[in-house]
């Protein structure tokens, strides 16, 4: 009932021009340093004015409605534009001790906070507002990838109101030794966060990136990441979302892989009130390979939606995807995993698995794996399960003397922790395991050497 009422109110507002539209129209597209993007921004804004925000009637938004957040959108989008000036390094914000090794890139309210220190040779991290001329072509070619026949509403919104974008680029054949830890934070309360990240992994280079979303209470973030992998390059991307309980994140990530490029994505959702990730991986070059793993914990009132789309465009491309989620309390998890194998992708191999645990009757999981195959000579498999804890495993632990409640908790956290095994940075994995453990209760049961003994 509630939902119907809210939907109607959204439709009603359309005719009276919601405040955010007015504000968007009045936004001046003259951000210093981004004049070269004004045309692109104007086009995106024109489309956005037509299309508005995603609505519950759209198939991709069937289980995730923004309708209940209309007021927040209106207020945040109408907020006067912040003075988005890169600040000097803030000594009161030291590198977090648990970040592990690497280069930290602080992006606050969409703006590169300070020039990252300790950039390795072959690696560039720059704000688009201060882009060295030689890099503009690389940035533009990434931005162009969003120009599609069917534009994405959230990407258009991000482009139209862009305050800054950050380009991370490698030189061909380079291999920066340390991971890049991109911390996307929202600091200004009651304003829309619009981070835009461009990652260009040049041919035969290797890169490790941690993308971490944090924020203030009541955060509302519309993030867009565009990532391109050149021939023979490798990227390990770890995406971690730990927003406050009332935070809202909409994130659109698109990866395009060239010939023999290889990517590993690990996505972790632990926070937020409503989080929706749309992750697209285009296997565009022959022999490209993608591994996508995901973990989400939809407890409390949390709503976590992961829409993934792996598109095999070129021959002999391979992908494997494993998403696992837990819903508890009044939480709701949504998973939609689509594998598309296009006519040009003969000899491809794709595997998709989604496993979910429902810990109580008030929680909900909606899962939908989809295969769209337009060519013979491919091997694809998919499966999704949603259920309770394995009764055999429970009995096994109890038969060794473990309390039933402890046994349940141990199995639950083990289930999620398995999904973190792809996180190759021990400090980060330990931090996430600790957070998971705290949320699920109980003591650590890590399988890491030394942790248990």
């Amino acid at each position, binding site marked *: 009932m509630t939902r119907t009422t809210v939907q109607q109110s959204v439709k009603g507002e359309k005719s009276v021009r919601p405040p955010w539209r007015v504000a968007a129209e009045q936004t001046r597209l003259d951000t210093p340093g981004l004049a070269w993007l004004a045309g692109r921004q104007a086009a995106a804004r024109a489309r956005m004015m037509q299309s508005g925000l995603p609505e519950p009637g759209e198939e991709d938004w069937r289980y995730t409605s923004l309708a209940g957040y209309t007021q927040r959108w209106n207020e945040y989008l109408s907020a006067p534009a912040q003075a988005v000036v890169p600040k000097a390094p803030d000594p009161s914000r030291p590198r977090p001790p648990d970040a592990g090794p690497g280069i930290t890139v602080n992006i606050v309210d969409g703006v590169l906070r300070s020039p990252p220190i300790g950039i390795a040779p072959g690696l560039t991290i720059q704000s688009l507002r201060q882009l060295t001329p030689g890099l503009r072509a690389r940035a533009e070619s990434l931005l162009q990838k969003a120009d599609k026949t069917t534009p994405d509403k959230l990407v258009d919104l991000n482009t139209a109101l862009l305050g800054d974008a950050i380009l991370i680029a490698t030189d061909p054949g380079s291999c920066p030794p340390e991971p890049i830890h991109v911390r996307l934070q929202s600091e200004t309360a009651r304003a829309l966060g619009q981070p835009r990240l461009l990652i260009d992994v040049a041919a035969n280079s290797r890169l490790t990136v941690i993308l971490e979303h944090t924020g203030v209470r009541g955060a509302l973030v519309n993030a867009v990441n565009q990532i391109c992998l050149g021939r023979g390059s490798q990227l390990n991307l770890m995406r971690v979302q730990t927003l406050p309980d009332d935070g809202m994140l909409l994130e659109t990530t698109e990866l395009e892989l060239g010939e023999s490029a290889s990517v590993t994505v690990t996505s972790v959702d632990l926070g937020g009130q409503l989080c929706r990730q749309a992750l697209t991986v285009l296997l565009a070059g022959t022999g490209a390979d993608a591994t996508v793993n995901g973990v989400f914990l939809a407890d409390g009132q949390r709503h976590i939606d992961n829409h993934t789309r792996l598109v095999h465009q070129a021959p002999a491309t391979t992908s494997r995807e494993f998403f696992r989620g837990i819903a508890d309390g009044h939480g709701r998890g949504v998973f939609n995993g689509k594998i598309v194998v296009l006519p040009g992708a003969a000899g491809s191999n794709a595997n998709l698995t989604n496993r979910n645990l429902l810990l109580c009757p008030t929680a909900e999981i909606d899962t939908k794996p989809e295969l769209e195959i337009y060519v013979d000579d491919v091997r694809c498999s998919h499966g999704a399960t949603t259920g309770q804890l394995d009764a055999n495993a429970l009995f*096994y632990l109890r038969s060794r003397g473990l309390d039933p409640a402890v046994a349940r908790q141990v*199995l639950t956290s083990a289930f999620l922790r398995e999904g973190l095994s792809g996180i190759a940075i021990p400090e980060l994995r330990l931090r996430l395991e600790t957070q998971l453990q705290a949320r699920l209760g109980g003591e650590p049961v890590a399988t890491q050497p030394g942790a*248990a003994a």
Partner: protein
Amino acid sequence: MTGLRVAVGGKEILTGLDLCVRAGEVHAIMGPNGSGKSTLAHVLAGRDGYEVTAGSALYRGQDLLAMPPEERARAGVFLGFQYPIEIPGVSNAYLLRSALNARRSARGDGQIDAVGFLRLVKEKARLMQMDESFLQRGVNEGFSGGEKKRNEVFQMAVLEPLLAILDETDSGLDIDALKVVANGVNSLRHAERAFVLITHYQRLLDYIRPDYVHVLAGGRIVRTGDRTLALDLEAGGYDQFVPAAIA
């Protein structure tokens, strides 16, 4: 156990089983497929889905069947599973330490410290010829059939139960692994400890000498003897002991 009758899904599997196991004894229970061997093991360990319709089982004076599985374990009952479960994400070390501490606190002993625990598991791992690295791996995760069985006996060695029920621990083992498992069991033989070995084949009993051999058929014990009975079984099969009415 006296007159124990157990049904699964409405079908009676144990049909009045009598068995008395005293401390220090080793009993072998043999029988054809479907005779109720595994049902007996599961009922004694307290698994769900088994309905006790009649009879009783006393363990050290207590009503065993009234105790939940974890209490039985803490009181010293150990089941070696026929098909040990794989639990990725929970390390063998964690499981063992939790199990050991549960057992110790039931006895009124304090928690074992890290050094003492490590010393104990290293000693037992050596006994079972297992590489210590397995301790940090997930419980039975990626173990071969033989490794899983060895891990069951290893757990038993660490937990030092008073009543160990080994459900077809010998099946699926090659001869070398069988010797390791038998050696593990033999090293634990003790005046305070009893074993119930459930097995399909006589082979195990070449290495572990039982005090008694029972033939289980049609849900009850139809014959009891010493270890020569196992040899008779090997020679003549089960048919000779199965009453016509049941067969």
